[in-house]
């Protein structure tokens, strides 16, 4: 599974508001999306993030995998993360 790097210049608030100075676009994240992005920023791998979410939340592995893939794809499209 590939791993991802969050672009350095992004401003992410504690509450899940994200601003990209390079594109001028801003985004809102729900709490779990915010948590995942912060984990990515700290350099955690997708597998580490998956394990963390699975232990913390009431969700099965395959459902999480689907949601995580979709979320990461969106982050790539919005130019928030890139593949390492």
């Amino acid at each position, binding site marked *: 599974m590939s791993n991802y790097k969050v672009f350095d210049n992004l401003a992410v608030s504690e509450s899940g508001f994200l601003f990209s100075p390079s594109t001028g676009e801003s985004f809102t994240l729900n709490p779990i999306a915010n948590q995942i992005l912060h984990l990515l920023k700290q350099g955690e791998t997708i597998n580490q993030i998956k394990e963390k979410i699975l232990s913390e*939340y009431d969700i099965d592995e395959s*459902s999480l995998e689907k949601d995580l893939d979709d979320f990461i794809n969106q982050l790539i499209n919005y130019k928030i993360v890139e593949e390492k």
Partner: protein
Amino acid sequence: MDKKIYERPVIIKQQMGFMNKFGSAPANQPLTHIDNVSVVEMAEKYGSPLFVFSEKKIRQNYRNLNRIFKTRYPKVQFAWSYKTNYLNAVCSLFHQEGAWAEVVSEFEYERARKLGVKGENIIFNGPDKTIEGIKKAIEEKAKIHIDHFDELYDIINITEKYNLKADVGIRVNMDTGIYPKWDRFGFNYENGEAVQALKRIISNERLNLVGLHTHIGTYIMSTEPYKIAAQKLVVLANMLIDQYDIKLDYIDLGGGLPSHNTLKGQYLEAEQLLPTLEQYADAITSPLYDLNLSPSEFPTLFLENGRVLIDDAGFLVSKVLANKRLSDGRRSTVIDAGVNLLFTSFWFKHKVRPAQVSSTYTESATLYGPLCMNIDIIRDDVVLPTLKKGEYLVIMYVGAYSVTQWMQFITLRPNIVMITEEGKIEQLRKSENLDYIMEQEILPEKLKEFSI
């Protein structure tokens, strides 16, 4: 320790420059219970999709509209529009409340008769009436509303051939200032055809002219057209009184009142946009006081409302089959109820509410039905919370036309239940199965065998 409740990770791009002066789009609040009955429990017991009707709401709607008109005009009689929803239970409920039957085909006529409605309490409308159908309706004293001259002459021939006398009215179409003009039904007012038809009826002693009928359209969004329609029928009725001393038994203003559904292309929600029922009733009833009659001789006002009485008493419960991302990044949700069950989604933006409590994070999504057809779209764009596969949605205001215009296509038609006033769930129609569908088919002998 209990684990935290999971919700799909969501990132929403903020759009600038699209501020809405009416505020942000309201998120659709969950609807977990209908008349205190759990939506999820119903869906799990009767399967999904599932049509649910509320007896309480239907009776409330009828009593409310009845009160609104009866406080404005002394004699009012409703006739339930069968084509809007001819489930036996629904028709019977309206008949219990006192409504007659308004039918537009022999199929509907026979349904009403079979349910126990007397012929004399049936209004027979529509352009398609067969000789046998007309004969039966005459014998059973139904009110026949003549649609065209060919039908008028059919009726004359039948009464002569079988030595009968028929109670008839004519349907009148007219310009009420709205588009489209429904001039395909009945006789036109402006070009004099209606008067010509009335004269033809009056001159025949086997025909008893009892009423005038019009139905100006459907989902009429202003009151003025009704006022114009009532005024024009009053002109005809006064002409009959003054020139022929004919006092009609009734004047029938048809239906066409809108429900709470919002049309596609309408920006504001229907509730904010439409006149109140009281305003419609004022427009319809006030011109009737211009009749050249003493109040005791006033004709009965017939109304043939369908949609306004049933739409918000019907719900379609549907299960989420899948979530997908479209090519442009938009979200889409596939549910198990398609346009074959909800024909009205082609012109209405049906309100959709989740059936379970969810978080406040919402996403805009396209709502697709389960059919492998590109046209199967329930909502082009709807704001919903993050829904998981297997969760339920409730599509609102689907009581009118859905269970009469639905079709068996790709999937089978589902169960229909009604929540009674006592809170009991009664099944009104069983879901279809393969045998039911195949029963009507005939496979030629030579096509029975093949080897692939």
